[in-house]
């Protein structure tokens, strides 16, 4: 019966020390019939050993990475964390605040430009907690820029502020020099310039949402604890 088991599985069981006596016997019979079987098994054995040695060398060269000090991470007190783009600005408090402010107003201002209806307390944006509606879909059933929301969730790093609801427009306090990202010559001979605008804005928000991971590591939007904004470990 074990003569019907395919060779890779038989080899694998031998390498895993899980082969039964009958499977070893089957291997031996095959080796009698074709001595190259034994050579192939030896080659697999060698591969296993060399792979373990190589991985061990790779991991042993890695410094011991220890856990960071806790910063109010326990259940019910989820700290908001800024995405790494903050590091582009030197990770100073002002720059981080700038990015946070920009994140908070990003959706609001884009809605204004697009003429979309801004969600309000009366029509809250659905979160992942509301399984009957998708992210960005309003409670009243109207689709609220669902594509953009889905994109922002899938692209946003964990801990990023994914959305905010605000009744008032943001106020620009200061605009920092733009950061050149890319230039590209267009077909008509002009130059298309892509830059990063950095602005320090202030805004009163009614609610904010952040990206977290569910148990399967999928990005999920949940309501953020606004009180934690002020004690973010990065700010």
């Amino acid at each position: 019966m074990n003569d019907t088991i395919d060779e890779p599985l038989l080899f694998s069981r031998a390498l895993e020390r899980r082969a039964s006596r009958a499977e070893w016997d089957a291997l031996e019979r095959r080796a009698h019939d074709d001595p190259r079987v034994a050579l192939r098994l030896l080659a697999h054995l060698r591969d296993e050993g060399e792979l373990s040695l190589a991985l061990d060398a790779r991991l042993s060269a890695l410094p011991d990475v220890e856990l960071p000090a806790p910063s109010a991470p326990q259940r019910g007190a989820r700290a908001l964390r800024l995405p790494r783009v903050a590091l582009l600005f030197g990770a100073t408090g002002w720059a981080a605040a700038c990015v946070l402010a920009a994140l908070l107003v990003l959706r609001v201002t884009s809605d204004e430009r697009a003429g979309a209806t801004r969600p309000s307390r009366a029509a809250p944006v659905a979160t992942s907690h509301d399984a009957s509606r998708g992210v960005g879909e309003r409670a009243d059933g109207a689709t609220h820029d669902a594509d953009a929301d889905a994109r922002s969730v899938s692209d946003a790093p964990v801990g990023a502020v994914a959305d905010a609801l605000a009744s008032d427009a943001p106020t620009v306090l200061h605009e920092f020099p733009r950061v050149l990202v890319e230039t590209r010559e267009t077909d008509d001979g002009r130059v298309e310039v892509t830059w990063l605008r950095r602005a320090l804005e202030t805004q009163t928000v009614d609610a904010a949402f952040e990206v977290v991971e569910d148990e399967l590591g999928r990005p999920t939007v949940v309501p953020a604890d606004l009180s934690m904004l002020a004690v973010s470990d990065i700010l």
Partner: protein
Amino acid sequence: MSDSSSVARALAGDRSALEGLWRDHRRWVATVLLAHKRQDAELEDLLQEVAVILVQRLADLRDPSRFRAWLRAVAVNVARMAARRDGARPTHEALDGVDVVDPSGERAARAEHARGEIERVLAFAMRLDPDYREPLLLRAVDGLGQAAIAEILDLPETTIETRLARARRMLRRELERDARPPVRPGVPDDPSALRLARDIA
């Protein structure tokens, strides 16, 4: 061995339990990162990110018995997010620090001499499809058996066994395709080699 009690203690604020969990698992976490990261991503940085998420997000884990699967998902996401953040395509055809763009070509042949046999096997393992690469690398980590790998990957043990068998076969084929001479010239006229393999195993 279940991690549930340690996870429960860590969730209750026991820092030493959390540190113990990390020490117990960081080696295979690094292996998962290695299996999924971009070539130029720093393994140490990614491991540090996983450590940060473990501290900050463990409270999100609803079922402590699924800690390993959760931690593996965190590691995979850290590797993928790093690839997206760095703005280039994910790569699984190259080993960290080692170019294996065309392992059957002249470049690989030159690199092979410099690299040595051991790294060569790992380099070819890194070229496998992630579904096969990850369990194969995890199996090469000290003490990780099929049951533990099944728990980490959240897959049935029979699936792991099948994937490992296929991964080993694919790895061997790739190595043989690399235009190398056979492991040993000649063919034995008796199954003594099999007995040797059996004794070693």
